[in-house]
């Protein structure tokens, strides 16, 4: 409201706004940071292009393999109260007991009585952005009962078919046609073979991490462990039980982390900017047009090298991505599409981005493909999670 001008205040006392918060309590400081966040653009206008991290080298490659090529559902998580890394064994014992108790209640899970999972906690050493970041840890749910043949969960593996144009100098694109179907994303539904089933099969995995979480670490005391990003793979009912236990035990709060279109385009730009030795997947965008009776999905696939070439042409500041560059990058794609199909993509909603580095869906699903940029991808997700919990 520009027209409003406070008249000269009556008691013309000294104080300026800066004098207000001298000895503020931590809560007061937190409110301050919320204020700052709310009053400015939610995300900083520039970020670093993901780089290969030194710390990441220490991570057990077997464990990293567990994290890649899997679809994860994202959650943000408030700091854990009185969590201790020395008690992981004890925690898995308690969590197992909790799961047994929950299943006895007959709530939440629809699967058979014999179905039981045993959880194991383990740390993901080295999975951090800076030395200050707390250690990430992994919780795996293993099948106990050998009688279980097939759990009923269909693991949906999204295999993106490569639509690479044979001619690298032009951008290849495809439109998935009308009414609902997206022809160029083949979703292969692979049910696991019973033969794979044996005792110790991992059925549910979840991990907690904090990559470059400085902004959060500064505001909490040592009673809390900040692992703002939680990723889960497996039946949601299991996530619910395990999450509930964490909430009860460490007084934390899980909330689903959705990724809006704005952040998806940032991801598209940052991941396209990553240097790759060889590309494993095509760069693909999916837009959704809300129209009745069925929504229309538009898929736009580009050869990764073409995408990189486009990025290089808009990219100016070395090592960094700026808001203008992201906008420009997306605008180029839009105008290219418009030239051919007379459709303004900017009027639709971006719902998915897939690149050779990783793919992300607006519902808060992510799949990381490239080992090298794992930390970089997680750093941005951590940032989004922190934004949600602040």
């Amino acid at each position, binding site marked *: *409201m520009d027209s*409003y001008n*406070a*008249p000269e*205040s*009556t*008691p*013309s*006392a*000294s*104080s300026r*706004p800066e*004098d*207000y*918060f*001298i*000895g*503020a*309590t*931590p*809560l*007061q400081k*937190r*409110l301050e940071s*919320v*204020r700052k966040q*709310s*009053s400015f653009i939610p995300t900083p206008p520039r970020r670093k292009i993901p780089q290969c991290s030194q710390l990441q080298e220490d991570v057990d490659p077997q464990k990293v393999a567990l994290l890649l090529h899997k679809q994860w559902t994202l959650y943000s998580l*408030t*700091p854990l*109260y*009185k969590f*201790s890394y020395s*008690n992981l064994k*004890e*925690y898995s014992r*308690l969590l197992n*007991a909790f799961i047994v*108790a929950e299943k*006895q209640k007959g*709530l939440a899970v629809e699967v058979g009585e014999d179905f039981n999972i045993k959880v194991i906690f383990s740390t993901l050493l080295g999975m951090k952005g800076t030395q200050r970041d707390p250690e990430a840890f992994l919780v795996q749910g293993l099948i106990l009962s050998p009688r279980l043949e097939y759990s009923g969960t269909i693991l949906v593996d999204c295999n993106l078919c490569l639509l690479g144009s044979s001619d690298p100098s032009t951008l290849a694109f495809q439109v998935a046609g009308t009414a609902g179907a997206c022809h160029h994303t083949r979703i292969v539904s692979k049910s696991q073979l019973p033969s794979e089933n044996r005792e110790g099969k991992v059925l549910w995995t979840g991990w907690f991490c904090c990559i470059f979480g400085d902004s959060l670490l500064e505001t*909490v*005391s040592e*009673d*809390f462990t900040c692992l703002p990003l939680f990723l889960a793979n497996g039946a949601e009912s299991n996530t*619910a039980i395990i*999450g*509930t236990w964490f*909430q*009860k*035990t*460490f*007084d*934390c*709060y*899980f*909330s689903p982390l*959705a990724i809006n279109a704005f952040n998806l385009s940032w991801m598209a730009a940052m991941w396209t900017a990553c240097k790759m030795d060889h590309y494993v997947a095509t760069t693909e965008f999916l837009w959704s047009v809300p129209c009745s009776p069925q929504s229309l999905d538009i898929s736009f696939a580009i050869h990764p090298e073409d995408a990189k070439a486009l990025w290089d042409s808009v990219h100016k500041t070395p090592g960094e991505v700026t808001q203008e560059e992201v906008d420009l990058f997306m605008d180029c794609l839009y105008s290219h599409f418009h030239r051919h199909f007379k459709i303004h993509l900017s009027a639709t909603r971006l719902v998915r981005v897939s690149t050779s580095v990783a793919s992300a869906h607006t519902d808060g699903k992510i799949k990381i493909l490239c080992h090298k940029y794992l930390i970089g991808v997680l750093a941005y997700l951590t940032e989004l999670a922190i934004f*949600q*919990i602040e």
Partner: protein
Amino acid sequence: MSPQKRFKNVQAQNRTSQGSSSFQTTLSAWKVKQDPSNSKNISKHGQNNPVGDYEHADDQAEEDALQMAVGYFEKGPIKASQNKDKTLEKHLKTVENVAWKNGLASEEIDILLNIALSGKFGNAVNTRILKCIIPATVISEDSVVKAVSWLCVGKCSGSTKVLFYRWLVAMFDFIDRKEQINLLYGFFFASLQDDALCPYVCHLLYLLTKKENVKPFRVRKLLDLQAKMIYFKNSENLWKTALLAVKQRNRGPSPEPLKLMLGPANVRPLKRKWNSLSVIPVLNSSSYTKECGKKEMSLSDCLNRSGSFPLEQLQSFPQLLQNIHCLELPSQMGSVLNNSLLLHYINCVRDEPVLLRFYYWLSQTLQEECIWYKVNNYEHGKEFTNFLDTIIRAECFLQEGFYSCEAFLYKSLPLWDGLCCRSQFLQLVSWIPFSSFSEVKPLLFDHLAQLFFTSTIYFKCSVLQSLKELLQNWLLWLSMDIHMKPVTNSPLETTLGGSMNSVSKLIHYVGWLSTTAMRLESNSTFLLHFILDFYEKVCDIYINYNLPLVVLFPPGIFYSALLSLDTSILNQLCFIMHRYRKNLTAAKKNELVQKTKSEFNFSSKTYQEFNHYLTSMVGCLWTSKPFGKGIYVDPEILEKTGVAEYKNSLNVVHHPSFLSYAVSFLLQESPEERTVNVSSIRGKKWSWYLDYLFSQGLQGLKLFIRSSVHHPFPEQRA
């Protein structure tokens, strides 16, 4: 009374009245009244007696039927009777109805327990009886001991025994004494042999065990059992709603809002995706977490947890005070929202982790539950409204806003449509903790202003109402803060000047909103009432809250009120002017007494402004010189209007809002007169007329004239 004492009194009054008023006077609640449940409420108030009588008669009939039923059971089944089943069914129904509705007296429980376990009736009947043994208040220990003795006789079936143990566990807290029952410890312990009973007996022993009951042989037995089984079976769920009702009955009419005690856990039928049943977690003490920290926990550690006070035992305020140093905190801090005792604790504790846990929980829950913040899930609107109501009740109870709510407002206000949960949302605004106005303005008030200007007059009034409450909350907070300066860790370490500056900015902001709103709503009287209500708070800051601040209203408001056609508006204006005068005089006096030039001497501008308003007012209403000093209107323009006697056209007789009073005054004087001449009111008649006005309830006018005008020749001074 000394002035100092008076201030305190007024504050205390405000404080007590506030809790209720913030719920009752919210304008936006008016809309809610249209829904059927509320209208029923109103009608109930209207015809209180008939309804009450009906209920009374019903109660009596019920009581008789219950007596008959209990008598019937006591006699035992009559073999010969033909419609035996029918009678039995009827009596059972009666007992069940009464039990679930009001609970049973301890004598009735005694009889029914006896019947259920003696095996006089069949198993099905025993089960039904046991299920409905719900105490009205307490269960006598003797009944329980008698019942246990029946168990030894072997008259009842295994399932009845199980049900009895479940009942005993569920009702344990309502048994009046436990010494005798504890003497039966050995008996209960022996019952562990029975596999069916074992889980429930375990739970009972858990409730019953005292230090002296712990013996090595028992510990060995329990360790054996532990290998087999770890968990208590839940005994309570059969009686969950009944238990809550009994708890509430036993607590009696407490000054604390009852709803706070009654967790919404079971009112919420919707199964939530994750968080089981309720938004607000259930209260559990955190011993779980704490013991996770220890490497090994031995059984004796478990039993001798003497150091801390478990939450489950916390029942009263004195208990809280006695154990405040060793209180076991809940494992999920959010659960305090349902517990008024712990809200007290939260309120006074300065422990950062406690507050931070609560802050995180509340912020996240608000974000997740908010029906317009993330996705539009309007079907959960009712739940969200209830949740907000719970929060507001807690804030009213504590007389303090939560920071999480403020942060939530920052995020969600820009997306708010102004309709959803309006009443609750605006109440959240009124509980924003005191802070620097200029910092909050761009985040909150600017968004609110956009809605304010584009919404209906009712919305405008609601906003003004909640801003009035906000001002009041800030003033109360500041006045307390000044008196309790020694608290070093107060949330805001501000200078008094800074605080006053912030308050005055808020007042000026509301002034600006009001002036614009008056223009938009073409000087609506309804709106003006709400605006003047706000200024009724503003004018009394110096005296009521002992804070050095006097801010006058903007001319747009003053003249609108002065020229209003509504008498009550004018009366309110007079009252406000009277209070301004009192406050300014008090301030002046204080300045003179202290002599020293304090930081908070009001500028002469304030006095000038007030005098200007006063001159206009007295000129209009009293001396009939309306357009000389205060409002200046060019005489030529006045000529053009063609009003012959414009000079006295705004005095207490001719002012449009007083004219009807003048006429009825004259008619009262001489009822047979066919024509009235209001100009005849002068001299002695003038003072009679004034007395007449005062007798009509125009107290504001009376106070104003008494304080600002000197009979019979009016002059003005301030």
